[in-house]
């Protein structure tokens, strides 16, 4: 049992190593932005607390549940291709893409409501951070969906197999990074006050 555990814990990172350089770079950028938000908030706590009340927290909750579930669908896609089921892999990826689309739709509805309420980049420091962080993440979701769409197309075309599915793992790793960043962003911007 212990020998088996030690064997499976010596595997390389899933997917192409280059994507992990990109992932760690992205995580670093988001980490710096999170720190900037937290320290800006520490200097303007009253402003941040008041401005946070203007957010509809249900949008944040819905999008977190959506993104976590899409990430789970991508896990199932990876498991499917490892079992040699290309079509199932494609189906799970299409499901994840659909949820990604739901995330974007919810966020756009939230942005629309924000603008109607007068939230803007120049309104106050909290709004500047909120809009910048969430729009920056929004663009990562768009990029992640583009990657997943390519992977899904190739899965349906039978371009992956049990022996060669690096592309699936590469796309999946990026998508999980997008999910991970949102989980922190949700807590920081929507919940903690």
């Amino acid at each position: 049992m212990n020998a088996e555990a030690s064997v499976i814990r010596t595997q390389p990172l899933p997917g192409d190593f280059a994507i992990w350089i990109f992932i760690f770079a992205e995580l670093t950028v988001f980490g710096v932005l999170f720190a900037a938000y937290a320290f800006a908030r520490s200097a303007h706590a009253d402003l941040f607390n008041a401005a946070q009340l203007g957010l509809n927290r249900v949008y944040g909750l819905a999008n977190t549940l959506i993104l976590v579930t899409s990430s789970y669908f991508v896990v199932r896609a990876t498991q499917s291709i490892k079992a040699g089921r290309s079509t199932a892999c494609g189906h799970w990826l299409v499901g994840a893409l659909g949820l990604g689309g739901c995330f974007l739709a919810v966020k756009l509805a939230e942005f629309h409501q924000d603008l109607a309420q007068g939230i803007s980049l120049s309104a106050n420091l909290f709004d500047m951070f909120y809009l910048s962080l969430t729009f920056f993440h929004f663009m990562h979701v768009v990029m992640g969906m583009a990657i997943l769409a390519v992977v899904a197309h190739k899965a349906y075309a039978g371009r992956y197999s049990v022996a060669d599915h690096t592309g699936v793992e590469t796309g999946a790793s990026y998508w999980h990074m997008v999910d991970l960043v949102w989980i922190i962003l949700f807590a920081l911007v929507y919940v903690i006050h």
Partner: protein
Amino acid sequence: MKSPAAPAFTACTVSWVVLLALTTISFELGAGAPGRALTAAVLALTLIKGHLVVSHFMGLRRVRLRWRIAMAAYLAAVGGVIALAYSIT
């Protein structure tokens, strides 16, 4: 006979359900009074969620120790910096 993928499927599915539950709990905690207890509780839940995503979704529980340490260090650093900033408010 169980397929080799069965244990991973179980762990990932359990992780997904736990992630949904912890997200909902965090949301409900956020409706409470602000303060350090809220910050600490939500940060702790967030770090647990991050660990679940990294280990079971990204699959880093199977990789070499240095990568697991790198990702754990990232989560600890982000959580620590946020906790520090909120503690000096």
